[in-house]
């Protein structure tokens, strides 16, 4: 259910459990936000990747009754399916490589490169790297777990502990880090084309420097001392690349400052089960989003408090709204070398958290584009939360 920080959410029943949703990137220089997203399914007899169109700028819709478990569909702009393609195995992760092509990591150990052509409204497989994640031989493939892209370079991590570096034009992996992890690689983020951050099910965050001619060991290993809860996902702050947020299996969010020690700066608790995806807002990095096995999608707001606000309001800010008018005091928001996530305020728990969604089954994935969030759940629904507000 939507709350005060966003418009009324729209639910679309699709008939399969959704493991990944991603907005299609807009060509550079485009002013309008993307209105096309893709959704991948898992755990079904035949899994698929479907392309959907959703244009929230269509006429405003009346608010749904607050008691309804799902917003009624009448009067709402529903996403419409454009096309879809079947894939072998569960869709484990999905990332766009450019405006048309996406890399899809599958539980069959293969990575598919899918090509969506908007004018023809078709989605086809343009390449597949078969069983590049495996144990000893390719007869024992292991699921791909994470996909990261940087330019045209694709990095994939798997349950076999490997990391493969792929390029759309090459049929074989450019490079393979054979024993990148002794457990399971759970999340990957690439930055600056040469660095790769990977989370592991053994609770480690590893930094890989791909400039070295042969990569055998990570350039850094970061841990939470004495705590081996698996890490599930990660994201890097868009304007402070040394800030990394990691979601863990016990529902906590860890914030690491890569410039500092190997221990996290702060551990924020909130969710009650595995965090499946975590994402900073690309344009408002003070805003963080998480979705979880505990059936919720959260919006974390660490925007520094405006001076006009009384401090008593702030102390009780967790899981509540600060009902303050939009403030013009955003001096630190885009300051070059500071982020509220590493400030004392966040450490003391002074940030806002709001539910964007509370479903009945786990929320597996979401993607934030401009003001709109799309998310996919195990209750076989797509949810669209339009018109988020950012202070």
């Amino acid at each position, binding site marked *: 259910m939507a709350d005060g920080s966003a418009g009324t959410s729209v639910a679309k*029943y699709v*008939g*399969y*459990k959704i493991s990944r949703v991603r907005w299609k990137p807009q060509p550079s220089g485009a002013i309008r936000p993307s209105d096309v997203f893709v959704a991948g399914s898992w*755990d*079904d*007899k035949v899994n698929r990747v479907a392309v959907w169109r959703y244009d929230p700028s269509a006429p405003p819709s009346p608010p749904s009754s607050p*008691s*309804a*478990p*799902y917003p009624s569909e009448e009067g709402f702009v529903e996403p419409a399916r454009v096309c879809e393609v079947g894939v072998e195995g*569960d869709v*484990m992760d999905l990332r766009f490589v450019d405006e048309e092509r996406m890399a899809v990591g599958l*539980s069959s150990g293969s990575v598919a490169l899918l090509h969506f052509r908007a004018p023809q409204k078709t989605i086809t497989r343009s390449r597949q790297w078969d069983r590049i994640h495996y*144990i*000893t031989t390719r007869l*024992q493939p292991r*699921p791909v*777990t994470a996909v990261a892209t940087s330019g045209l370079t694709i990095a994939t991590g798997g*349950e*076999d*502990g490997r990391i493969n570096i792929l390029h759309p034009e090459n049929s074989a992996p450019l490079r393979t880090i054979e024993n990148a*992890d*002794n*457990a*399971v690689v759970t999340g990957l983020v690439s930055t600056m084309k040469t660095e790769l951050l990977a989370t*592991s*099910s*053994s*609770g*480690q965050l590893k930094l890989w420097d791909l400039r070295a001619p042969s990569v055998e060991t990570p350039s850094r*290993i970061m*841990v939470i*001392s*004495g*705590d*081996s809860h*698996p890490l599930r996902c990660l994201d890097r702050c868009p304007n402070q690349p040394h800030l990394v947020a990691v979601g863990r*299996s016990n529902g906590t969010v860890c914030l690491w400052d890569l410039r500092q020690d190997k221990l996290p700066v702060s551990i924020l608790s909130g969710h009650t*089960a*595995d965090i499946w995806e975590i994402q900073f807002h690309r344009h408002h990095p003070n805003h963080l989003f998480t979705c979880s*096995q505990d059936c919720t999608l959260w919006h974390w707001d660490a925007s520094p408090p405006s001076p006009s606000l009384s401090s008593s309001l702030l102390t009780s800010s967790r899981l509540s709204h600060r009902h303050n008018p939009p403030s013009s005091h955003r001096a630190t928001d885009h300051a070059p070398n500071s982020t509220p996530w590493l400030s004392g305020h966040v450490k003391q728990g002074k940030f806002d958290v709001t539910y964007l969604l509370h479903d*009945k*089954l*786990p929320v597996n994935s979401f993607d934030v584009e401009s003001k709109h969030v799309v998310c996919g759940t*195990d*209750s*076989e*629904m797509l949810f669209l939360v339009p018109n988020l507000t950012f202070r």
Partner: protein
Amino acid sequence: MPRPQPKTTISCRLLFFRSCANISKSSEGEMDDSFQRASLYPTTLLVPGLPANCPLLASWSGPQRLVLFPRPTEGARQWAGLAQVSWDAAQWNSITRRLANQSHGYFLSLHEAGREGEGQSLQGSDILLYSRYFRSALHECVLGLRGRGSSSWEHERQAQVFSTMALVWHLVEILFIEVLPAGCLVKQLVEWVTWAGQERDKKRLKEILGHTPPDSHHGYWRMVYRLVLTGRLSEARNLLAHHSAFSAREDVSHNCSRVWTSCWGRLRWSDPPPPSPEESSNGWQQWRREVTARREAGAFLSLRQLQLLSRCAFVNTHLFPQVLSGEEEVFSEPEIVGSCESWYELMVARVLFTTPLVMSSDYDLVYSAEAAMKTFGVVSPEPLDSLLLAALKHSPLEVVYGAKLAEFLIIEYASSLLAHPSLWQVAMDYLSECPTQGRHHMVLHLERIPLTSARKAAKVLQLCRKFQLKELEESVCRVMAMKELRSGRLGAAFSWCLQSQDSVFAAFLAERYFTSYQTLGEFMDLDLLDNLGAAMLISKKLTFLGKYREFHQLFADGEFRPAGQLLVSLLTSGVVPKRFWLTLLMDSLPLLNLKDEIVFSSEDTVALSHCLQQLTSSHSRIDQSQSTSKSHDSEKAPPPDQSSKLSLLRVALCRNLALATLQEAELS
């Protein structure tokens, strides 16, 4: 589970909507699909590749799977394979899955609302709200199944099942969930019977009105009756006004309408509900007197004449006044009976005109129902008829709400959900609400969910934690750990083991790590071992492994004294299995031979010597026993090169003891 029965062919009696049989022969490893439509009658499946007349036995291998094998003595000669017969849960297609997910949401919301009430029973309004949500979901599902033009045979059958469900559910809602004051129940009953046929009636009415003249349409009078019988009076009046005879003489038509209006205007059976049953009853009586008086005054006479004029010979116009004044015989007139599509329509018409103030608990309802069934000629009631009658008799109140049956039904439903590979999460929530049998079923089903990926296993684990299925949590982690172990990935196995805090498995893995250290001379998965923290305490052996690793780090950092202390405490604490003692003792050698530092005190040296002594004496015991009987494990006896190691140690210990004693004497 049913016992395997020897049969030459397997006849699968598939229930309800399980209709697709999908046969795969596992002995050849390739799928050979053949689809066969099954009904409620036994179906014979021919399993491809089986020799004819081979006597078979069968055993259940899953909720929708049978394994076939030949009878040991007779069949083995003809065929010595296994065949797996599995069938699909065809009831779960993309349209019905939506219903499953929606009703799951309502089910959970309702239970949550119940829990929030803390002991108070659920608010009737809550139940009613979700009951209506559920019915609208059912309706949506029926529309979905019938829509899109390409409605298959299977979809149509499902649509029928779901619309029947909606019909029964609606009646149950009216009778049990909604608490209606006198005079309101009948209105709801009318809505109930007309709801399903609304669209059809509208279409037919349009067709009749489109006919010129409308009254020449063969369904004209039937429609008039239907409208009157279901209380849709304004529509009935409107239709009558289109009668050619009426429209020819407007004044009469007007007059006729006025009579109708004034008659019906006196009857208040709609909103707002009458303030009290007495008042309502008075109103009803008054209306009845009015109609009788008008009939006697000949008000309907003109109507009859007009109809005679129109030569609608088959219509008994006198029926109307009779109906209106509640003379019961009229409900057995063929025209009236013929205008109803089911006995329950007739029943509601009867209730509407004879006992409109009926309450849901009144016997009048049952009486009307039985009479209507008799009139309608229902000799052998279908399941639906019995269900509706049972609901009217209020017997479901005892049955459905009896906890045991309710639980049985929920488990049955959950099992049908589990027949589909991806609805297990939905099914678990249902099972979790079954207090007596639920957990048992949850464990049985959860442990059979194929753990195809680590992420899926994590989802299963989370369910185990949510419902506190500790044993299953351990077993899931063990299954995943074993899978990794078989692939030689100790680290991955270890991370699974840590998740369930499985001490037995942790001990096993710790030994594997140590053994690999003994053979390789270096530790595997150092990043994992160095960051054990509190996890070290899961098992004694893991503690040993962690501490031993710590010793290595101290040694590498040149912290010899703390390293020595750690080594001694490890050896004396008893956490180290004896077969690892030699390795640890050998590790003390470089510390003993340090040139400028005495690491071990005399007390420590004595302790180390004691360990060494124990080790050599146990070895010699083994040697002795081996000389008498050679059945002992040869691994426990030291290899020849170990004796030189032992003597080296002995010398170093002696030297250290001397030095340490001297130093201690000097200090004191």
